């Protein structure tokens, strides 16, 4: 009896999940139709609700970015292209549009080291790197197991797998560092004033144009501490002007 109930629950869960996916797909297509008709406000609202309820995917963020671009909201367009890029770093459309909007907002060229790192991170998603890491790890363990039995014959493959595992782990940590431990944000409304402390009583240090990518260093109530690595600037910006990637 217990088994029957469990199986029943499993079926309901599966069905529920499929139904949710179907609803999401229907909403997505509806938003696409609105975009095609030029109803960008409606399309943006539908895409945003999808991202909020179901979590995003690359196509959703890409289309949302396009919608904001059509509404001349370059900051939000960039934000969503960046999100799409994280989920699909090799998607040529995403890369093209991201670069296109960056040129539009005249984002400065990244320093060589940053560009190199970004190119490396652009080769694969976080999960792909994690899977690679895991693959190397399992390969190494199986190799080691075989080595215990067969000794000499398995030394080289095992060592190779181990080296790959070390490299992949390094890459994974780099990736986690950039995408998880480091918070990046995009200025979604600009030009936004950046002050020398959290609060309007502090003096304005510099201003950021819409669409500028910054590193988020910390938060204090309605204020976010941001840093610009290329210019070496730091300051506090009101939360409403910035959104984390």
């Amino acid at each position, binding site marked *: 009896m217990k088994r029957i109930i469990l199986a029943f629950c499993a079926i309901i869960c599966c069905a529920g999940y499929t139904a949710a996916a179907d609803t999401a797909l229907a909403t997505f297509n509806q938003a*696409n139709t609105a975009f095609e008709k030029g109803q960008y406000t409606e399309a943006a609202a539908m895409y945003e609700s999808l991202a909020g309820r179901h*979590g995003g995917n690359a196509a959703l963020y890409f289309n949302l970015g396009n919608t904001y671009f059509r509404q001349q909201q370059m900051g939000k367009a960039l934000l969503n292209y960046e999100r799409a890029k994280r*989920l699909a770093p090799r998607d040529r459309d995403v890369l*093209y549009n991201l670069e296109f909007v960056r040129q539009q907002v005249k984002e400065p060229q990244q320093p060589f080291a940053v560009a190199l790192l970004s190119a490396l991170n652009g080769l694969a998603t976080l999960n792909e790197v994690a899977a690679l890491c895991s693959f190397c790890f399992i390969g190494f363990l199986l190799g080691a197991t075989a080595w*215990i*039995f067969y000794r000499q014959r398995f030394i080289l493959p095992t060592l190779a797998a181990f080296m790959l595992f070390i490299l992949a782990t390094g890459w994974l940590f780099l990736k986690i560092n950039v995408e998880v431990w480091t918070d990046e944000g995009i200025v979604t409304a600009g030009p936004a004033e950046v002050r020398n402390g959290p609060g309007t009583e502090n003096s304005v240090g510099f201003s950021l144009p819409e669409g500028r990518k910054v590193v988020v260093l910390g938060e204090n109530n309605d204020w976010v501490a941001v840093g610009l690595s290329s210019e070496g600037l730091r300051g506090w910006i009101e939360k409403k002007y910035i959104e984390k990637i």
Partner: protein
Amino acid sequence: MRNIRTLITALLCTVAAATFAMADVTVSAAVNTTTVALDEQLVLQVDVAGAATNIGSPTLPPLPDFSVYSAGTSQNMSLVNGSFSSSMSFRYALVPKSPGKYTIPPITLQHDGKTYQTQPISVEIVAAGKAPAANASRAAPDRAVPEQGKGGKSLFVTATVDKPTAYVNEQVTYSFRFYRRIRLLSNPQYVPANFSGFWTEDVPPRNYYATIDGQQYLVTEVKTLLFPTRPGAFNLGNASLQCKIEDFNHGDTFSDDFFQSFFSGGKTQVVQTSPLSITVVPLPVAGKPNNFSGAVGQLKVASSLDRADTKTNEPVTLSITVAGTGNIKTLSAPALPDWPDFRKYETVSSLNISKDGDVAQGSKVFKTVIVPQTPGKKTLPPVSFSFFDPARKNYVTAMTPALVLNVQPGPAVPSVRGVTEPLSEVTVVNRDIRYIKNLVRWETYRGPLYRNGWFLALNALPLVLLMLTFGYVKRQERLNSDVAYARRLKASSTAKKYLKEARALSAGGTPSDFHGAVSRALLEYIAHKANVSAEGLTFAAIVDILRKRNVSNTTIGSVKTVLEECDLVRFAPAGASTDLSRTLEIAAALIGQLEKELR
């Protein structure tokens, strides 16, 4: 008379110099008559006098009801008793536009930061011919019989059209005639009527003499050929002429300014015609040919080729000539039919126009370069051209005769296009973002894998496997190298083997063999545990072994009991009658107990 006037003027100047030491400048204005006919003109004179050399000119207020022309200035300067004075007269000819009572507003003069003003003047404009004769000549009000009733005039103008109604694009001849029997002091200025809505062709002016009411006039005739561009009623308005004539009227009251006769050198006279209108009717819709392109007149069409024989790929010029009367300039090229054997190039046209007899006529030649593509005797079918004949009030379609061209095979043109024409290049017109994506399946990102339990478990699995393998291999190694350890480990299984044997014997074997197996199980177990040989293991040795390994006395006693019982059955078969299964149970329990105590 003149002496008196000079004297008075000199007196006035003196008085003025004395009087206007403070107010420097005087300005006054006057007209020659206060009532004037619509076809006459008014002369406005503004006098400025003052003891200064550099007095500016007066500013006329806007006079929307009159056409204003400057009619000259005169100036006088005098130095009397050491005081300087000057006076200037500005004359304007005002031609009224419509009847009614008007006021000429004050005329202002700026001098030395001060503003001087004249008094306003009221004038009345009456319909043409009703005003008392002023000293201006009258224009011709009558279009139909312009030469009648003008006997008294020294100059007048008339305007006529040859027809009051015309078709669109049909020629209308507009004639402007200027009659005069007095000398002009300058070239007259002709302001033509309003010809908007017409395509115009000018005819050079002609001069001739005409006698009207016994007076001989010099007539200058200016003709304009008009071609209406659209149907409707058109008001041409009036044409006017401004000229300077000798002024013979010094005797009258107005001209008491004697300076004028020295410097102005005559007076300006403006004459204008009565307004004319033309009604333009559209071309009839009925019977309009398909290829009609707006040509109106009497036209003929002809065609020719510059040669009758040619070769393939050698160009031939086809000329189509449209000639006759009408608006030749606006003729459009007749449509050429499709000739599949020829390649056609752009048509160029040349024009030849004359206006003999005041009729626009001439010819327009349309030249088209055609290149035969295939050899043979080619016939160029007739080309048709349609026009509207306003005299017959119908459409006419003229055809050219068919033309024959002999085409010989010529040198092949080796794909000239492929060599000379550059490959079409990609032209980026507008760069934009890439278009939105579509999805077939909905999938969402569920966070990083390394936080997923299943993923971590998958990675832990081979780790467990490795550890197990390692443990296994290590144990095998010890079993191989350490005999005591190996025997100790095997003690239990060896004992179980003999017990199993005993269980088999309990069913079918002799009691002696059964007990032998049970005894063997116990002995082998203890021998394995102690790593000694089971053969010859005495009971004393067994007790010693068990004691050393801290086995309890109870268990040792049990071992002893079982072994003794077994020996009893084995070596004294007669008196044996024991419960075999119970013995087996006790032995098994005993081995289990030993397993626990032999740590």
